[in-house]
């Protein structure tokens, strides 16, 4: 059986990216996460003022998000540029691998790494919840939805980091991606500001508000920490939005990378 199909090549590149990341000790962040969460759970358990669940969910999910975003940025920005600098790309692209397959494979490899990372962190969050509350409740299922939204955030951050890394230096790519993450986290406020601003300023604010990724819509941490349900429509909208936004960023990355001279 030949192993030369497009899907298999993307799969091989993705798996290699994942393997490199794991062996590069990326998952070591889990130790810091575990220490942070278990310390917080013990501390909250000691204080015991009936907000244990709120604190653990808030802190746990925020940590999952921040740890993941940092990993997504710092690995994402090097995914292409590192391969060019170290010339590992030369021996890959001199094989029957198309440039777009390389970019897409890299993207899947990094998102795969983050999904595995998030999976372990999610287990940590639920263990901490169990520790402070001694049992799971029905509303804890919404924590899973918040985790799903965090993974959607990672998809967009990875795609953006990859996009910038196809034409910019790692440092500038990190700055651009992080800036977009921060601005995107305030997207709802920006949209509100755009609505009340008139003239050119309002027009500009509207363009920026709808152009930056809307990370604030993907943040339901506070909602689920209070045990409130996440509307089904939001799950659908966010899923479609994250997939489209990532696809657009990856398409941009491919378009640039297709034309790039690997000097």
């Amino acid at each position, binding site marked *: 059986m030949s*192993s030369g199909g497009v899907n298999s090549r993307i799969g*091989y590149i993705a798996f290699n990216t994942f393997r490199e990341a794991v062996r590069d000790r990326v998952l070591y962040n889990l130790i810091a996460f575990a220490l942070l969460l278990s310390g917080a759970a013990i501390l909250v358990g000691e204080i015991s003022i009936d907000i244990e669940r709120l604190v653990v969910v808030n802190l746990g999910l925020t940590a999952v998000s921040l740890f993941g975003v940092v990993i997504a940025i710092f690995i994402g920005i090097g995914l292409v540029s590192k391969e060019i600098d170290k010339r590992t790309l030369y021996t890959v692209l001199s094989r029957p691998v198309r440039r777009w397959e390389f970019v897409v494979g890299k993207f899947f490899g990094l998102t795969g790494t983050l999904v595995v990372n998030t999976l372990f962190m999610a287990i940590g969050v639920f263990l901490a919840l169990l520790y402070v509350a001694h049992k799971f409740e029905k509303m804890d299922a919404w924590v899973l939805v918040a985790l799903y939204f965090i993974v959607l955030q990672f998809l967009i951050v990875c795609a953006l980091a990859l996009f910038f890394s196809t034409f910019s230096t790692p440092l500038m790519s990190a700055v651009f991606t992080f800036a977009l993450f921060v601005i995107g986290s305030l997207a709802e406020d920006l949209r509100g500001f755009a609505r009340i601003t008139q003239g050119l300023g309002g027009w500009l604010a509207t363009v920026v508000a709808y152009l930056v990724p809307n990370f604030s819509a993907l943040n339901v941490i506070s909602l689920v920490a209070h045990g409130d349900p996440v509307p089904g429509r939001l799950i659908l909208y966010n899923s479609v939005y994250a997939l489209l936004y990532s696809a657009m960023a990856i398409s941009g990355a491919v378009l640039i990378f297709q034309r790039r001279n690997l000097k």
Partner: protein
Amino acid sequence: MAAIEILDLEKSYLVGFWRKRRKLALRPLRLTIEEGEVFGFLGPNGAGKTTTLKLLMGLVFPTAGTARILGMEMDDPRVKSQIGFLPEQPYFYDHLSARELLNYYGQLSGMPAKGRSARVEQMLARVGLSDSAGLQLRKFSKGMLQRVGLAQAILHDPKLVFLDEPMSGLDPMGRREVRDLIQQLRHEGKTVFFSTHILSDAEALCDRVGVIQQGELRGVGAVAELTSQAQGKVEIIFYAASVPAGLTSLGAEARVSGDMVNAVLPEEQQEAALEVLRRERLKLISLTPVRSSLEEYYVQKLRPTEIRRGAGV
């Protein structure tokens, strides 16, 4: 059928802050390499050897011109499964072992799963890395990485192999092994296109060589012919500001370099040439039989403006 037909391939880059200045990396290059040939691409660093290879590999895009590889357009995806490439000073994924890396490249090359592992082991043995196959590549020396590079270039049994400075970073033993490997590839009927600036390697291995400098192909010659031309010649170096007229009539090819003249002439004219020097009261520096005409050819092609033939100084 020609293995490689390079048809006026040209590459220039826009440089400067506003990217308005054009820097020519490769002037229009026209070159044909036949199937089964071992071709050496010679030139100093920065001459355009690597640019040519990168163009053929599709790593950089030509400003003008094209090339046909194994009868197909160079950007035809089918080409890639039939060629192997070793970049200059190769570097691979740090955290993979040599075995994992070759297996990965085998997958990307579309090698069937069945038999891939056996082929990987065979390649590791061929480049002498069987004992280190499980070691992560970050622990490999430069020479070992070069061997891995060679193994990945021939892993999928390509018809055509491109090697960019394959002897770079190798100790004498390693260089010998690479030479043997290229000889084996020749016996297997593969076409080998390799760049080097080590003339002895080119002389030992190549059917033909091309000399490139400042992005321009200066000449192409068959090594056998060049070597036969060298037999029966001597090189005389002496102090003089110009070439004495008497040497011209002896059939000397002379080059002025500073206050010295370097003249190559038939061995039977050696005594007559020394007589000319005595007569002209010129001081002899050395007289040696010409061993490598490839070196002469290389030097001539690299500095054509400095070459002065006979009395035409």
